[in-house]
């Protein structure tokens, strides 16, 4: 067992970090203020990210990505994750891995333009009536004369406003299971502008300013069979095969922001003086720092462990859930304590802490709530003994 990064991994982290600090940080305050990412800025930063080979670097080399192993990929995600989410997600986009599951034609139409920075994707599963319980979804795709006809509503769909197409999961049938009837699900590519498909503004929310969510309405939206991603009724298999590691992506981006908040807290504790000494000399402050650093290290190790196992093919669902759960909860704790150490100044938008604190909130909800992660972890424990 050895825990050192390779030279390349260190360089990947360093170069991504330098890019994030020099090119993304300067724009954060404005986006936090306006909640909007202007297209000229997106184009400018996209071009720089491409020159540095950072754009879509999650993708395999054969399709124009960087061909990174999982640990390198997550080191890159961690550094990107330091910055405002809308900025890094849009300007240094990582197209969804699920696009790799498409046919050659689908890759030509959807994957390659995303990698070239010409288009953006979005992924729609959640519905007003179906969040954690996706197999209880109501939106349907009905087979009709060789076509599919889509009806229903999806909500909370991230960056669907800027996306050029959506990968949409629809119920195409039902099967009996020991736990009652469950929906059979199929994934579709739906282009913006397809008749019967509309995207409207979603909700304003506390986390990730500038990173929008939308409501997707399907009203007799007719799609050819060629719009199916993967196989009919096998939408969940495609998702499981290609989206498993997104939990690790969430974990890694959280680790980046947690590290940023912790660095601020350490620097401030060494600099701020009250009662005639550095506040870091009070154990009430210094012991917080010790716990923050220890928890962050634990979260890092859980994530790197899962990343390494992912490449060995030995990762379990529980490994990935633990990494996501720990990283998101540690981020929340560190953001909160970093503010505490800053006193009143921690709440002011002069520092990135108030926003790291706000941004931390969504991480325990999306990509599977903390409760769902605990469910996955405990299920694996109990199944092993026949539970």
């Amino acid at each position, binding site marked *: 067992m050895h825990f050192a990064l390779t030279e390349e991994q*260190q360089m990947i982290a360093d*170069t991504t970090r330098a890019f994030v600090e020099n090119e993304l940080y300067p724009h954060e305050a404005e986006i936090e203020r306006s909640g909007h990412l202007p297209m000229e800025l997106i184009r400018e930063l996209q071009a720089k990210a491409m020159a540095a080979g*950072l754009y879509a670097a999650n993708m395999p080399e054969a399709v124009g990505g960087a061909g990174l192993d999982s640990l390198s990929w997550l080191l890159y995600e961690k550094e990107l994750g330091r910055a405002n989410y809308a900025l890094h997600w849009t300007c240094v986009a990582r197209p969804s891995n699920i696009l790799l599951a498409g046919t050659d034609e689908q890759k030509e139409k959807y994957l390659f333009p995303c990698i070239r920075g010409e288009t953006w994707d979005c992924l729609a599963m959640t519905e007003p009536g179906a969040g954690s319980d996706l197999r209880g979804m109501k939106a349907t795709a009905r087979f009709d004369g060789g076509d599919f006809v889509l009806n229903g509503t999806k909500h909370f769909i991230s960056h669907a406003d800027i996306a050029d197409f959506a990968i949409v999961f629809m119920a195409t049938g039902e099967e009996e299971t020991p736990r009652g009837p469950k929906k059979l699900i199929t994934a579709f590519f739906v282009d913006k502008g397809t008749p019967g498909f509309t995207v409207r503004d979603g909700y304003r929310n506390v986390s990730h300013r500038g990173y929008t969510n939308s409501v997707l309405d399907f009203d007799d939206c007719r799609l050819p069979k060629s719009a199916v991603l993967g196989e009919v009724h096998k939408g969940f298999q495609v998702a499981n095969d290609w989206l498993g590691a997104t939990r690790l992506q969430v974990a890694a981006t959280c680790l980046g922001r947690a590290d940023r908040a912790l660095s601020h807290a350490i620097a401030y504790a060494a600099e701020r003086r009250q009662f005639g000494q550095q506040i870091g000399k009070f154990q009430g402050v210094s012991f917080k720092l010790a716990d923050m650093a220890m928890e962050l290290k634990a979260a890092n190790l859980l994530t790197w462990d899962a990343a390494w196992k992912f490449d060995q093919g030995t990762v379990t669902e529980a490994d990935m859930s633990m990494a996501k759960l720990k990283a998101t909860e540690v981020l929340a704790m560190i953001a909160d304590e970093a503010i505490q150490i800053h006193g009143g100044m921690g709440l002011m938008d002069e520092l990135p802490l108030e926003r790291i604190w706000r941004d931390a909130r969504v991480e325990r909800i999306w990509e599977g709530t903390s409760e769902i992660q605990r469910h996955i972890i405990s299920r694996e424990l109990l199944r092993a003994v026949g539970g």
Partner: protein
Amino acid sequence: MKVLVPVKRVIDYNVKVRVKADGSGVDLANVKMSMNPFDEIAVEEAIRLKEAGKAEEVVAVSIGVKQAQETLRTALAMGADRAILVVAADDVHTDIEPLAVAKILAKVVEEEQPGLVLAGKQAIDNDMNATGQMLSALLGWSQATFASDVDIEGDSAKVTREVDGGLQTISVKMPTIVTVDLRLNEPRYASLPNIMKAKKKPLDEKTAADYGVDVTPRLEIVKTDEPEARQAGEIVPDVDTLVAKLKEKGVV
């Protein structure tokens, strides 16, 4: 034309430097190390010369501890074609003095026959500002220091120098040694694909002994001190008091 770029591994410019308890130098144990920022500018300039068709090959060379290999990989990831590591010390705290570095570089130049040596004007760790000049003397080559613009035209180079009074433009005969200043260019990011490729680029490992150069230090470091902590300021009520105070302290 081949361009040789010496690069030094130094304490990262973001690191808050700590002096060792015995005052013998700066503590480098478990401290982030990076390429000397001026050398990064030199690497960038060399790559630009290659991209402009004025150079065929960029060779990076580093003299120091084995870990300087990381610095060379960064140069390779930025776009240098190959690298030479000259191991001259075991302990990360051993600094190879400019004359020894220049002597080794002179041997490397003899072997490699570059048309141009692009070096940083100084290393940010000891601020010696001497290696390029010494190398020029050892080789009998022309030199152009503190460059903020470099234009190679056949067998001469027009170099703009940042001097105290402003900018000075000189013309030097090739082959030459140029030491670069801060404003010459903005170094690129080592791109992800180039980082992956850097692993496959050749990196030769030599020792100071291979070149027959004695690297024993000639300088004795008597003491290293932390910079004096800044004193707390004082707010004065008006300009008259300010002027009076300054006079009192003898600064005006």
